[in-house]
């Protein structure tokens, strides 16, 4: 009971605090520059001044926390990456040099490339297919909810689920892992999926695809609904079959959303390490950059120099995506 009250109080305090800032600061601004003064000129001058300041009232909390939580760490990481593991000796680019000759790093880069190709493509593709198909049936919303469900599961939970799918028992005993059970039922030999070099990467990717498809589906299905119905009807009259309509009319029209979904998932792929950590921890040749970074940063006493250097590489990898996004944002801004 006491705990409950405490929790409730804390929650209320936090939320009320945030509201109070916005409300209070704006009230203050309106007090300093009152709009309802009798003098017409003064009033409009006040209004203009308030309008100059107000955007910053709106933006300050966001900018502050972005600065503190994202910008500052980027720079401190950059600094770390130039120091050795103790964090006291400046080593220049030694960490980067080390990286290039490290076989595990090369393996991670290779695997990461696989991930970057497969996961966004597969998630988007499945998301698109499901979004397109579920739009045509009465139980589409139920289907969508079920497919979205993995999104609600934490990466750790997902790993538990998939460990269960990939579970291996020797051929003599009954398989309790779904995949092996199917293989055995089809007359095959049970396999240790997560220990099959190269292919195991794909078994790990499946997990992320499984999770992210729901995300892609939600965005794409919204986009599909945004397509003007008439263009589709026009294509029906033009004699296009459903497949042609999908490929030639619908997909080109939602290309923008597809790109956004693709980007978001790509960024996620670069950042996600939980799945690899929980399933293999990079063993059996499944290492990826994010997990490698985590490894160097926190494992065995921590080597911030190398960890940060890998982090910087991850950042650099997303620079092209970032530039693309900034371009898009700019272009869109010009339109208003």
């Amino acid at each position, binding site marked *: 009971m006491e705990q409950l009250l405490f929790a409730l109080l804390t929650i209320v305090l936090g939320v009320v605090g945030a509201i109070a800032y916005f409300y209070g600061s704006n009230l203050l601004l309106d007090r300093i520059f009152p709009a309802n003064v009798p003098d017409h000129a003064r009033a409009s001058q006040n209004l203009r001044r308030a309008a100059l300041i107000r955007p910053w009232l709106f933006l300050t909390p966001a900018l502050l926390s972005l600065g503190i939580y994202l910008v500052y760490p980027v720079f401190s990481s950059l600094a770390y990456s130039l120091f050795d593991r103790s964090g006291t000796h400046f080593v220049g680019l030694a960490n980067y040099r080390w990286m290039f000759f490290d076989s595990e790093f090369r393996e991670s880069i290779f695997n990461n490339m696989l991930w970057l190709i497969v996961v966004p493509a597969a998630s988007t593709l499945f998301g698109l297919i499901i979004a397109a198909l579920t739009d045509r049936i009465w139980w589409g919303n139920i289907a969508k909810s079920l497919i979205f469900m993995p999104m609600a599961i934490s990466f750790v939970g997902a790993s538990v689920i998939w460990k269960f799918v990939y579970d291996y028992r020797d051929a003599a005993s009954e398989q309790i892992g779904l995949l092996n059970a199917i293989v055995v039922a089809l007359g095959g030999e049970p396999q240790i999926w997560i220990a099959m070099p190269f292919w195991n990467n794909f078994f790990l990717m499946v997990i992320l695809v499984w999770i992210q498809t729901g995300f892609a589906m939600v965005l794409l299905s919204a986009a599909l609904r945004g397509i003007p119905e008439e263009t589709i*009807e*026009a*294509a*029906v009259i*033009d*004699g*296009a079959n459903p497949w042609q309509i999908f490929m030639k*009319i619908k997909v*080109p029209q939602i*290309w923008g959303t597809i790109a956004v979904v693709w980007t978001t998932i790509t960024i996620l792929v670069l950042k996600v390490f939980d799945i690899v950590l929980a399933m293999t921890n990079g063993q059996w040749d499944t290492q990826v950059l994010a997990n490698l970074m985590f490894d160097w940063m926190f494992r065995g006493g921590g080597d911030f120099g190398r960890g940060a250097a890998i982090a910087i590489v991850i950042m650099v990898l997303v620079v092209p995506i970032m530039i693309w996004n900034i371009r898009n944002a700019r272009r869109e801004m010009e339109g208003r």
Partner: protein
Amino acid sequence: MTGLVLKDIRKSYGQVKVLHGINLTIDQGEFIVFVGPSGCGKSTLLRMIAGLEDVTSGELIIDGHVVNNVPPSKRGIAMVFQSYALYPHMTVYDNMAFGMRIAGESKEEIDRRVKSAADMLQLTPYLDRLPKALSGGQRQRVAIGRAICRDPKVFLFDEPLSNLDAALRVATRIQIAKLNESMPDTTMIYVTHDQVEAMTLADRIVVLSAGKIEQVGPPLELYERPANLFVARFIGSPAMNIMPATIASAGNPTTLKLMDGTSLRVDIETPAGDVGKAASFGVRPEDLAIATDDEFLFEGTVNIVEALGEVTLVYVDGPVEEEPITVKLQGTVDVKRGEKLRFSADRSRLHLFDETGHTYRK
């Protein structure tokens, strides 16, 4: 030869009945316009003809074949949508060629037909542009061109001009009229709620109301001899003035008694049994004129005057309290608010409707 026959066509969306049995025969090459108030089912009917909506019951016959279950692309129709419905990611050329590509026509044939349609619609300079780089009128022409390329037996238009501005509307309307002339064998069905479009384009107009056909006929017949109150009110702008009345004496001429007691004689025959019954008396604003001699239809006080240059609209508080009478006078006429005026009309241009709204035929 009949191009298209609708036999007791009905349509419901679930419980909601939208069309209640439409019967209509359209000849090949005819230009038919559907008009009617918003929501009366014009688009629905058109879309059923196109095959975009299922027919709930009834038979839809094109060229002698029942096409109820024939997919749109096999019906030999083409459709132009109100919102153009161009494929935004394709050039004008590709937009027009799309249907033929799907049908697997040869490259040369496609090129020939696109080029000829573009020529006809003056679109040749724009063939490589994307729709977003075109003006509204050009887009609508592309949509028409796309339909032409299909070389259809039946051409369907759903309010094709309603997104265009006044000047463009006139120009495109004329283009459609020309198109109709140049394709004499093609049946055209056109939905609009623009009076002028309907009157100028149609061979026959079909007036729909609440899912039923009110009247079918050539434009002038509808204007001059509306079958009922609904059509009378609907065709013509400003709308016909309608005044409630009672039939004082039947026969030809008929004497009417208006609400304020005024008596009125009209050259329309009424059956003797209708004496004492309620009727509606109608006169078009443009048929009214300021009475020059002693004979006048009614007297009223000028309420609002709108001078349009070409004509002057005068709203007059007449014999019926709530409903002002609209009078359309040619040219600029100097009338003032509050002035009391008398109005007369050519007796042959008066209209009379019975209790149920049907016209007493002249």
